[in-house]
């Protein structure tokens, strides 16, 4: 996988594109980096859900564009969606998914988009854990208002070195700097 990630100058908006690259190693990069979610030998019985039908000039596997404060535009293969984040108070939020296709989609393409909607949303193979992850963090911090914890993730690696990585922290730090400034903290 090859990444192209750009943040706005204030760090609050972002654009991430992931391109498919040939990987004859069977995911060795995941295995060697001990990515905990990597499971060797796990296969889909019906891999058609992962087919990326070429529809744009560049064959992008994943495109994610978070626009501060509450909008995310996503393309996961041929699944196109807009996510809207609605804060409902300090402890709750709602995430609304709007899936869309094009009026001139063939019936096959329409079916394919519906099939690939399985990748996204609250039951999405790719995204179902997103909300659970924030829930875990929320439950950990809600009762520890005075406590401090820090994950020193990749701080010793320069921003330049992180540019091509899909799991880099520099963009998260850039966002936090922008947020801090915006809130006058």
């Amino acid at each position: 996988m090859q990444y192209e990630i750009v943040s706005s100058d204030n760090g609050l908006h972002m654009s991430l594109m992931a391109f498919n690259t040939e990987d004859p190693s069977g995911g060795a990069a995941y295995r060697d980096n001990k990515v905990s979610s990597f499971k060797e030998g796990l296969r889909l019985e019906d891999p058609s859900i992962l087919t990326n039908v070429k529809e744009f000039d560049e064959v992008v596997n994943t495109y994610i564009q978070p626009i501060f404060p509450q909008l995310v535009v996503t393309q996961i293969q041929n699944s196109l969606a807009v996510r809207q984040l609605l804060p409902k108070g300090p402890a709750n939020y709602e995430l609304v998914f709007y899936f869309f296709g094009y009026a001139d989609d063939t019936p096959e393409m329409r079916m394919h988009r519906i099939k690939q909607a399985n990748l996204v949303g609250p039951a999405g193979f790719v995204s179902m854990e997103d909300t659970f992850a924030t829930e875990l963090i929320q439950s950990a911090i809600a009762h520890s208002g005075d406590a401090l914890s820090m994950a020193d993730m990749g701080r010793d690696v320069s921003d330049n070195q992180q540019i091509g990585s899909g799991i880099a922290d520099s963009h998260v730090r850039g966002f936090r700097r922008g947020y801090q400034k915006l809130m006058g903290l």
Partner: protein
Amino acid sequence: MSKVSQLGEMLMNTTIEQMMLWYEMQRLQERYVSVIDANRLEEWPDLFTEDCVYEIVPKENTDLNLAIGVMHCFGRAMLSDRITSLRKANVFELHIYRHLISGLELAPLDTDTVEMQSNYVVVQTLTDGESHVYQAGRYFDRVIRTAQGWRYQRKRAVYDTSRVRTLLVTPV
């Protein structure tokens, strides 16, 4: 035998056949929910035909004639993939489902095909021991007779509940 009692017998046979069919469909539904609620999810795909369609869609979208839902499985292989993913890949809080089903209505199309609808409520219990209504909705099913018994060719769970709490990993 008089004509009147012949007619009576015929009506009675028809009624018994209808009752038998209702009983068989009710048994299928109960088997379906017990497979899920007892966490025997590996058996779940076996209740469907090879070419089945299984979907979970919000009523909000169905009413607007919008196709999209939270889960769309086309074919039994996709059902198996869902269970493999749940067992080996997904990260979620442990939970228990209790399905309550009611109001089974049958519309037989022919001797081997039945369309049916029923209400369902899924009560979810999380690790903190709290139970809440996770989803309320209606099943729209098409069932066909196979050599192995009745199997779902289509199962469409249309849920009234506006929100999915955190995530949906276990089928309803």
